[in-house]
Each structure stands twice: as structure tokens, then as C-alpha cells.
């Protein structure tokens, strides 16, 4: 028989069980099958991006004039291109470029956009007006057109593609964070923190920024997909990576002359771009279902 004291003890222990936000997140995230699958895919892609050069079956830059435009086969999983280079090896090595460009562009955009959004939402007044109207100006251009204009100004190259994609990401981040900040700063605990003598930076960083996190995480994953598309698009137009680079957009671009005869040259990088962007969007959707409190309880 259980004595009353042990019952009490077990109750006390129950309430003391450590609360872990990550555990709770994982519990609901693993129910999102599509997002889970997509995260596994992206995880593999990231691993491949790191070890790509070591596992690629062929040298991605080495031409082989005995195997031009060969279709997919056992020796060349994704076939060869117009110089006889192994497309599968090029895709593997190219994953690094695509991921690096999109991650760094989104990450830089995130930092800049978040800082601007926090300042704009928290301080309000003329600072808010200047930042938001500048964002409106950037919003009024179609994303890709803006990116083309920026690259045209700065000159082609991977780094400038990163800058261009970053610049058109900034206003979206700024607007998102500003909205979340306006919400968060109404909380009494923000006022309470101020009443305890916390500085603006401290209040913004410790009490307001965490409130914007769940929306930011969702948006970042979505945005990476867009960034990959934009970077590939720019490279396709000849504004990004140089033509010999195994960048997916470049491969798409150089292969388009052979679309009629050897369609795999275009289809393979197309599939790579498609799957990667799809995977990021699926993760974003899954995260939204888990993290967005408006959807959470449904």
C-alpha cells in the first residue's frame, strides 16, 4: 500500500519534471511527415555539400571527350554534359555553392532585416517611418528584377549574387520583425523590465527578440528556398557563377542548347533545384504548423 507521504512525493516530483521547449517542439514536429522527410533530405544535402569533393565519382571539371552528352547509365548516374563531365559529380559539388550562396544571403538578410525591424518597431516615430518607407521602395521592385539591377551595378560573381539576394531579403525580414516587435512591446513584462532599469538594447535583445523567433525560423526556411531559386536564376542569366563552375543555375543555362537532343543535361540540375526548394518550403510549412500559435491548437 502506498502511504500518503509517498503519494505526495510522487506528485511533487511530477510537477518538478524539467520542462524542455525543444522536447515539446520535437514531439509535434515529428508528426509532420513531409517536413520530417524534407529535413532528412536537407540534412543529407548539407552533408554532401561538405564532403562532396571527396565522394564525387568523377572530377567535376575534367572533360571526357569520349563520353559527350551520354544519358544516365550505371557509370554516369545522371549522364554527362556537353564536355563529357559527369553531371552527378557536378551536382554534388554544386550543392555546396547553392547552399552557401542561399544560406549566407538569407543569414545576412536576416541579421540586417531583424536589426532594422526591431529598431523600427520598438522606437517608432520618424525612425520607423524612414525604415519602413525604404522597405516599401525595395518592395515595389519585383525580387528578381531588383537582384538583376544590383548585380548589374556591382558586376557578376557569386559574392555579388549573395549581396543582391540579401538586399531583397532585408525588407521582408524587417517588416516581419517589426510586426512581431509591435506586438511584443505591448507586453507588461517589457514595461516591467524597463521599470527594473533595463536598457533599450537589453529589452530588445532579451525580451522582444525572442518573441519574434518563431516567426523568423519559419520565414528563414522559406526564404532559403527563394534564395536558391534567385541565385540559380541569376547564374542562369550569366550574372552569377562563372560558366565553368558546377553551379546548378549555370548547368541549367549551359545545357539548354541540348534540350532537344539530350534533355537530361537540363533535367538533372532542374530536379536538384526543384527538390531542394521544395524541401525547404515543406520544412517551412511544417515549422509553421508547429510553431505558429494561431494554428497550433487546431
Amino acid at each position, binding site marked *: 500500500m502506498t502511504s500518503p507521504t509517498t503519494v505526495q512525493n510522487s506528485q511533487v516530483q511530477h510537477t518538478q519534471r524539467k*520542462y524542455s521547449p525543444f522536447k515539446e517542439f520535437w514531439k509535434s514536429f515529428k508528426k509532420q511527415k513531409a517536413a520530417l522527410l524534407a529535413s532528412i533530405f536537407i540534412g543529407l544535402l548539407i552533408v554532401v555539400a561538405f564532403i562532396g569533393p571527396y565522394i564525387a565519382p568523377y572530377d567535376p571539371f575534367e572533360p571526357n571527350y569520349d563520353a559527350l552528352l551520354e544519358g544516365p547509365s550505371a557509370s554516369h548516374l545522371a549522364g554527362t554534359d556537353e564536355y563529357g563531365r559527369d553531371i552527378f559529380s557536378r551536382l554534388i559539388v554544386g550543392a555546396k555553392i547553392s547552399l552557401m550562396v542561399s544560406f549566407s544571403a538569407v543569414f545576412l538578410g536576416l541579421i540586417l532585416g531583424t536589426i532594422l525591424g526591431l529598431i523600427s518597431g520598438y522606437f517608432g516615430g520618424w525612425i520607423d517611418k524612414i525604415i519602413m518607407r525604404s522597405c516599401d521602395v525595395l518592395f515595389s521592385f519585383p525580387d528578381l528584377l531588383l537582384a538583376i539591377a544590383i548585380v548589374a551595378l556591382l558586376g557578376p560573381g557569386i559574392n555579388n549574387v549573395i549581396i543582391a539576394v540579401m538586399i531583397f531579403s532585408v525588407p521582408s525580414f524587417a517588416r516581419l520583425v517589426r510586426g512581431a516587435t509591435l506586438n511584443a512591446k505591448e507586453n507588461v*513584462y517589457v*514595461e*516591467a523590465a*524597463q521599470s527594473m*532599469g*533595463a536598457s533599450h538594447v537589453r529589452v530588445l535583445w532579451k525580451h522582444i527578440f525572442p518573441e519574434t523567433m518563431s516567426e523568423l525560423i519559419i520565414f528563414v526556411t522559406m526564404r532559403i528556398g527563394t534564395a536558391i531559386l534567385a541565385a540559380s536564376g541569376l547564374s542562369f542569366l550569366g550574372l552569377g557563377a562563372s560558366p565553368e563552375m558546377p553551379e546548378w543555375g549555370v548547368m541549367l543555362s549551359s545545357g539548354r542548347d541540348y534540350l532537344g537532343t539530350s534533355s537530361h543535361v537540363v533535367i538533372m540540375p532542374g530536379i536538384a533545384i526543384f527538390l531542394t526548394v521544395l524541401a525547404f518550403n515543406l520544412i517551412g510549412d511544417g515549422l509553421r504548423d508547429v510553431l505558429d500559435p494561431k494554428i497550433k491548437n487546431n
Partner: protein
Amino acid sequence: MSEHVLRVTDLETSFTRDKKEIKILRGVNFAIRKGEILGLVGESGSGKSLTSLSIMQLFHGTTGKIVNGSIHFNGEDLTKMSESAIRKIRGKQMAMIFQEPMTSLNPVLKIGKQLMEAIEMHLKLPKNESRHHAIQMLKNVGIGRAEEIIYEYPHQLSGGMRQRVMIAMAMACHPNLLIADEPTTALDVTIQAQILELMKKLKEENETAILLITHDLGVVAEMCDRVVVMYAGQVVEEADVFELFASPKHPYTQGLIASVPKIGDNKEILDSINGQVPSPQNMPNGCKFAPRCNQAMSVCHEESPPTVNISTTRQCSCWLYATKDVKVNA
């Protein structure tokens, strides 16, 4: 004068809307001595909370601004200090407890972290010592399992516990002045009594002066040494708590006290003061309370009443006493 921790003189605070300045506080005067509990009472919209925010200078994100008057805190005028100088005072020498314990703690930070934030900021203690201090503070406010609570999140605590945590936070640096803005309104009655008892205890231990903002006259009678009654952004009456309840002078105070339902009265209709606090854009001439006052005279509608010293501890702004022999004390 020097014994006053806080002295508010002719405080006027206004907001700007559509480029028009709307004055909400129109000359507030009062003072708090060391270790004293001063009650600030009045209806909603009478400017109680704004008075506290003006003292803390927490207008952030609003157009609020002190346009006139002074706030002397420990001999220094807060209205003339820079934002960063005031920040050093906030939380250290003067702290605040809010009405809603449910929302005044950040839900994503652990209790300990929030408590230690203020301690590290103001007392400049290393991490272990500030944790130790935080645990000690939680024990002081009657939280038994303080060592565990500091690793918990606010949603794991009840309302009463959270308010205790808030009090611990406010008292962490032993402030000279504690502003409590309706600290027990959101709590149920038994917890209310505990929290008030706790505030009294802490006041006695630390000689902290407390500005207790409330509309609950029961709390005032229980807690306060002196009471300031506010109406429409002005102080209408100031008195010792016993005097105030024994013989309220201002018709508004009389109305407030009459409005408190008494157990055993069995009234069908409760007493109330007719009408509402006038909106700040649309203040009546003369005495602001005159339109609702049942003793209003013609002079009340024309001219603002002077502040009359009824005795050394009592002041009242009403024409009823300006003309009569003010020495007579009930």
C-alpha cells in the same frame, strides 16, 4: 523636507494626439516619507497609473511627456535627469510592481534569470552570488522551494506565486521607494491578504516607502498611513488614513467611501457617484468634479477651488472649505 523620499510638485503630464497636447495630470502634489505607505486612490481615468509612470518616467513608445513640475527623489529632480541616469535609479532605488502578475513576467525566461537580471545589472555581483541573492530574495517573500523555482518558467507558477516573484524582483536591490500599481487586483482575496501582509513586512524590514495605487478602499484602510485622493488628474484630498475614513472632506471622497458596499446592508441598489470622470479633451470649467457633485455651488462651475490646509496633515481642494472656517476639524 529632507525626510521625504519622494516629493512630487505641480506635476503636469500630457500626451500629444494629432499635434494637440492633451494634459492628463494637471498639477499633482504629494510627498512620501521614508518607510511610509501612501495610498493613491481614485476612479479609473483619474491619473493614478500615469502618476506612477511619470515618477518612473516610463513613457516609452507613447507620446507622454512631463511638461511641468518636479519630482524630487532622494533630493534629486528626476525630471532634469538624463535617461541613462534614471535607468540606474530604476530597479535599484525605485522599483515597481504591476497589476497583472500573469503577464509581468517574461514567459520564455526562467524565474531565476529574470530575477538575476536586475541583481547583476545594479549590484554588479558575479553570477553565483547573484543566484544566491535571488534565492534569498525568493525565500524572503515566502517561497519555500526557492532553489527549484529559479529553474522554472512563469507558467508553472500560480498568480500569487508570480506576484511574490515580482515583489522579490522589485525588492532585490532594496529600493527606497516601491511603487505598487494595484498589486492585488488580479488576485483572489486570500492571496491578496498574504501579498499585502508580505509587502508590509518587507517595508518594515527595509524601511522602504511604498506608493500603493489602488481603487480598493479596503486595501487602503488595511495598509496605508496616509491617503491621496485623485480626481481628473489632480489631487483633491490628502489626509491621514484614519481621518479620511472618519470624516472625508471632499464630496468626491465622501462619494467614494459611500460607494463601498457594506456587508449586512442588504441594499437593492448600491450607492454610486453619478456620471463619469470627464474626458481630458473635454474638461469642465471650474472644479472638475462640480458636474457630478451633489454639493456644487455656482462658484464651483466658474473657478477652480484652492487647496485648503484643513490641518497640518490634511489638505482638500474644495470651495466648501475655502469659505468656511477651516480650523474646525471633525
